[in-house]
């Protein structure tokens, strides 16, 4: 068993477990922290797939910024105590779990049906593709289709910043 396999099996168990804990636990702060664990596991998956740059960005953006924002809002609205939102037992829950398990089975079954074409990747090529240089060269290469979406993304982020400020300032 290679190092990648060992890492994959351990981390996949951890990530699935903490994802389940996220939706099982009643306390929003705990769900957020469980989700952070899942995100960190995903970052390590990226490293295992030799996407180093994405792993770093995943930790910085998701774990370092987005989840901190979540925790902030939870603490700000004082939803930290479990009594804040009482989850009543409804008919919705068992149906949702049943459908969810059905969905898992469906997805795995559909993947068992198809066979992926033979892998075309060579180890040294994929290893280089994860680096900052490779990503930057593709992102800013005018011959590739990524430059325009990249510019659009900046506008999207600007709109989001303005939207968030307007939302926070407005007195309703």
């Amino acid at each position, binding site marked *: 068993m290679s190092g990648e396999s060992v890492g994959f099996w351990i981390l996949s168990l951890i990530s699935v477990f903490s994802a389940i804990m996220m939706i099982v636990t009643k306390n929003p702060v*705990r769900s957020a*922290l469980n989700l*952070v664990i899942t995100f960190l596991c995903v970052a390590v998956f990226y490293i295992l797939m030799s996407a180093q740059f994405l792993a*770093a960005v995943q930790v*910085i953006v998701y774990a370092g910024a987005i989840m901190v924002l979540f925790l902030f809002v939870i*603490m700000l609205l004082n939803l930290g105590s479990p009594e804040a939102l009482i989850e009543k037992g409804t008919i919705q829950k068992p149906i949702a779990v049943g459908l969810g398990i059905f969905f898992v089975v469906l997805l795995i079954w559909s993947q068992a049906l198809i066979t992926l074409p033979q892998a075309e990747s060579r180890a040294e090529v994929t290893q*280089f593709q994860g680096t900052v240089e490779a990503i930057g*060269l593709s992102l800013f290469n005018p011959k590739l289709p990524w430059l325009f979406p990249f510019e659009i993304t900046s506008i999207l982020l600007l709109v989001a910043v303005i939207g968030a400020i307007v939302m926070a300032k407005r007195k309703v």
Partner: protein
Amino acid sequence: MLEKFNHLFIFPEYFHGVHLPSLVPYIAVVGCVGFILTILPMLIWIERVVLALMQDRSGPNRVGPRGLLQSTADVVKLFFKEDARPKNIDVSLYHIAPSIAVITSISAAATLPLQNIHFEHANGVPFTVPLTAGNVNIGLLYILAMSSLQVYGVVMAGWSSNNKYSLLGGLRASAQLISYELAMGLALLCVIVMAGSLQLNKIVDSQNILPFAGAPEILRGSVLCWFWIRSLIVPVVVYTIAMIAETNRAPFDLPEAESELVAGFHTEYTSLKFAMFFTAEYVAMLIVSGLNAAMFWGGPLPPLNVVPFTLIPGFVWMIIKIMGGVFFYTWLRGTLPRLRYDALMNLGWKRLLPIGLVWLFIIAGMNLGTDLLIERYPAVKNLVPQEARFTEPEAPSSASPGQADAAADEPEPVQYNALSNPGQPAIPISRTLPARRVR
């Protein structure tokens, strides 16, 4: 003269059948952790003595000569303190929080560039291996990621303690960390734009150059070539302010403002758990000072390329520079009063962030302008820092332009060396990368 001593620092590649270069990362790991854990008590002592000097007091003077063993006594005291635990806390989070704080701050040391170790291949080809635990492509991003994870230790401690002071301290600390991370990142981006790499030892290498053509060899990699002056001083100022705010030290120590918040997020922690937060704070100080040294102050490079300086190995220079950063921390703590919370946020968002953004544009424009000028007037090349940033061995490009057009994700094949060093021992990996303009 120089050559006379230089051979002392060159090691053979194989020593009794042991491949020495592959041992280097392990040495770096042991060295980093050992250094951090042994310097910590000293650090506290240094801080107290320097502070006492500045405030004209005598400082620690009871335990050991000149109070040297005071920190040891403190550690022993912390060991034997009762581990008090408040009621109604979130038990597991309360216990995990200190360890997260320590782990994230110590592990950030992994990519700091300590030194280049010179080896000699059996056939006489010299090569260098950086003394770094993980000489990874994303070195700088890794440190930033680890420092952004430090928020969790603080937030979890503040939230799980079930205490208003702790919660307020935790919220303040995380708000401060998030807002100053931006300014810090922008200041570092200025350097990245100039160095052209995120790999910290490459950033150090790009400071090891001549300041202008025909400069005496004494100036190679000297103070004049470091990025604090080459990025026109403003980024280093922004970074230094941001790094002090990042580590929650005076004058930005609002999260632990004892006059208003008791002790902030670690109010409810006693004994060794408190000691762990303390450790995390000091280690974070060392790490951000180390990053400052590597990015702006030449890292392991000596200030002048002459004999008494070059004889001192690189990691000692690194430690000296880190200690300079620690001294600066203490200096500020001894002189400046604490900022108000709104003043802190104003400084971060309304001053440092715009300055950083504008300066990034200036640096990028400067780089571009120099390239254009060199194209127009080749004589300009003699005035700017010599050697290309991020040099790569030029390789014969056999692909025709039509081929390069067609294959978008298979650019023209160019021999690409992983590390810019020509005599690299690592497996020569041929990778595909379009040829870069080397000036």
